[in-house]
């Protein structure tokens, strides 16, 4: 079939279904049902979130002394021992509804202190910074059975695809756009000149496909708001639009969200200050997601993780340096929440990792593996052989996901 023939063919096939003529110049839009209706969203808090600030162990006898001026005196109570930072009220509400589980003392296998290596390892799913050049979420997509290779099942919310979602499986990235898509004549020619450039060709195909879905999914009012995305309220609108993409019956099943700015080396503050502001912004995003994902919330699990924690003690400049274990969250209607997973070793000097960091006691891969197995229904053998190779010793956790 020549390019023009194929185009005519796709035109005919598409106009009756979605009226999406322009986008069918490229593969990417599927019409058959996807193999799972579960949704998994992974939120990456980049920069090393201070778990002891987000989830302060107020009941630990050494907490106040160890943290010094950074110690919180008050928080939203969880189990009498741990609390949530006051800025995390929307998460507290989820906890009370048993839709949030909190993990503490959790860490990837990484034990050094480079952000970039720490993030690489967290995202590639191995125990080495350069252990794989694809991300574990991409390998998860590849493990869905009976899948068309060109289907858009993964979505990076934001302009770029992070390593965790990057790999052989096609994925989309989406962020609000203010311009109209190119017309079909130009798309034809673009397809021609990208014919020998797989990276460009696939990126454009996926980009067009996802915009088509977003365009159909969003209301006029939301589109109007997206045009003003730079004028504030970005978290809410982004969440609203992204939620629509996740709700589409042919849309993404796995999505990622990047939230930067957690590298609190100086003046991080306590209940107020720069870290508190970050937590508040994050909590607003969570609130927007829960609201906008309401129709599929029961099928949704949201994982919130960071590459490493921070030092227990305040550094010389009112902040904290790169540490090891931190806290993580698992939330959603599909989550068996209201729990705290922490094998807590305490904060006295002898219980710390290298005398400075919160001791890692839970391997983050155990959390990831369990969510993939119990939420997405992926066989453990696939998980341990392909998605998280060499992770058998990390084990799994039980009862994280509600029995549906």
């Amino acid at each position: 079939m020549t390019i023009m023939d194929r185009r005519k063919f796709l035109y005919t096939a598409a106009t009756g279904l979605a009226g999406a003529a322009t986008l069918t110049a490229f593969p990417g839009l599927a019409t058959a049902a996807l193999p799972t209706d579960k949704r998994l969203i992974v939120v990456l808090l980049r920069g090393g979130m201070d778990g002891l600030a987000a989830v302060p162990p107020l009941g630990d006898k050494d907490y106040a002394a160890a943290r010094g001026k950074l110690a919180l005196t008050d928080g939203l109570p969880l189990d009498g021992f741990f609390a949530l930072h006051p800025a995390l009220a929307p998460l507290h509400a989820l906890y009370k509804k048993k839709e949030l589980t909190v993990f503490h003392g959790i860490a990837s296998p990484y034990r050094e202190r480079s952000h970039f290596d720490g993030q690489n390892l967290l995202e590639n799913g191995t125990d080495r910074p350069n252990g794989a050049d694809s991300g574990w979420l991409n390998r998860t997509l590849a493990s869905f059975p009976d899948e068309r290779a060109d289907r858009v099942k993964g979505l990076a919310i934001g302009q770029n695809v992070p390593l965790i979602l990057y790999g052989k499986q096609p994925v989309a990235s989406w962020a609000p756009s203010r311009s109209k898509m190119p017309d079909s004549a130009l798309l034809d020619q673009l397809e021609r000149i990208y014919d020998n450039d797989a990276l460009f060709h696939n990126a454009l195909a996926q980009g067009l496909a996802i915009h088509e879905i977003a365009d159909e999914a969003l209301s006029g009012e939301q589109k109007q708001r997206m045009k003003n995305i730079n004028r504030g309220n970005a978290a809410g609108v982004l969440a609203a639009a992204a939620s629509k993409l996740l709700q589409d019956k042919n849309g993404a099943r796995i999505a990622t969200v990047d939230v930067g700015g957690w590298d609190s080396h100086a003046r991080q503050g306590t209940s107020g200050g720069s870290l508190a502001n970050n937590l508040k912004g994050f909590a607003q995003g969570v609130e927007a997601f829960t609201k906008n994902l309401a129709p599929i919330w029961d099928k949704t699990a949201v994982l919130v993780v960071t590459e490493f924690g921070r030092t227990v003690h305040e550094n010389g400049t009112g902040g904290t340096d790169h540490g090891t274990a931190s806290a993580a969250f698992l939330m959603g209607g599909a989550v068996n929440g209201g729990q705290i997973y922490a094998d807590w070793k305490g904060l006295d000097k002898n219980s710390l990792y290298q005398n400075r960091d919160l001791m890692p006691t839970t391997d983050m891969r155990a959390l990831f593996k369990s969510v993939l197995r119990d939420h997405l229904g992926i066989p453990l053998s696939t998980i341990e052989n392909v998605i998280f190779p060499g992770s058998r010793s990390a084990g799994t956790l039980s009862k994280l996901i509600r029995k549906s």
Partner: protein
Amino acid sequence: MISNSAYIAMHRFGLGPNESDAARIGASPQNWLLAQMQNFNPAPAAFQDLPTTAYIAENALGKLKQLRDAKKKKGADPEESQKAVKAMLKTLVTDLTGEITTRLNYAATTETPFIERLVHFWSNHFTVSTTRKEVIGLVGAYEREAIRPHIFGKFSGLVFAVLRHPAMLLYLDNVRSIGPHSPAGKRGKKGLNENLARELLELHTLGVDGGYSQQDVQEMAKMLTGWTVNIMKGLQGKDVGAFHFVKLMHEPGSKTLLGKTYPESGENEVRQAVLDICAHPSTARFLARKMAQHFISDNPPDSAVKKLESAYKRSGGDLTALTKALIALPDAWKLPASKVKTPHELVIATMRGFGGDVKLKPALIAATLKHLGHVPFSAPSPAGWPERAEHWISPEAMIRRIDWCRLVAAKMQRGTDIETLMALLLGEAASPETRFAITRAPSKNDALTLLLASPEFQRR
């Protein structure tokens, strides 16, 4: 019609062709690059009106400090003080916009584009980002004063200039790092901050696998104590905002870095350590790979990296020797172009292609850079902007790139002869598909869009 080697020289080593490049390049593109090095001007006239570090220190940082101090004084009107602080910050942002526009326009018109690419490369290597508000006023002066004059000297000289610049000291938190056993440390509760020491070893010199330990990071941090900027309480002086070594903050005693013990020598310890770190084989390997990755491909051949590595070692870390070795690499002169131009490079190349003018207002160009996720001086982390193609070509990014091409095409179609422009921008490197699509496009607008969106123009 430009030859393939001229295409490579102008796109890969330069910032995209313009008529002036094409006229000058002659038979030996390598000589065109070497001549630019010979005529290197560390202080181009285009930048002469931009504020210096000393000026910003005195008139921005100093005043900002005064305003913030005044806010805390008894009887101060908090609202008025807050307004004054905000106005000051606004001025700094305006200055930054001017700086970025000047830099962009210079890159779009300079007759030494290879020099400019090297400045951008090293500036990114030693990233200072406006994601930290404190450095908004300083980033431009930092590049002009700490990076640009040092790109052809010893690498250690570049490192040293960077470490002494207030922008880097502020960005990576060294200004308030205090030796625990120093007089200041004993008096107060403040102490060590490892941030600058860690990034110096990991990102600037040895590389993450360079063979240093956490202990080394801490020892380096101790050496760097006292390296600060004169904005701290009790340090008001004439040179407010500028580099300042404060002995009272410096950790006393000898320090051991990478197995070598450095006796206590105050400010001089860092100089000694930097010389040793820069002479370390890990640094040679790390820089060689990074340069090959930037100029050849995301996965450069090991043999090319080895050649750069040995040029660095042989010359004792001389950046002129390293740069010349890069030009001499056969691998650097091969097609196809595999590197993807970053959005910033793409915008510059587009502007150059039209003689520095794309008939778009600076504000719209700035908005485009933001839309494409690549505003100068705002890298997401101290690691700087990523090199790899996949980072810059995602589905959304691809659509936005094409948007940029359409925008420019709409503005520039009149008076542009497509065949002539294609010969200048792509020359022999244009693939038959690209040539065919452009010449057969149904409108001039589409033809120009396709030329700018072609892989041969988007890559280098």
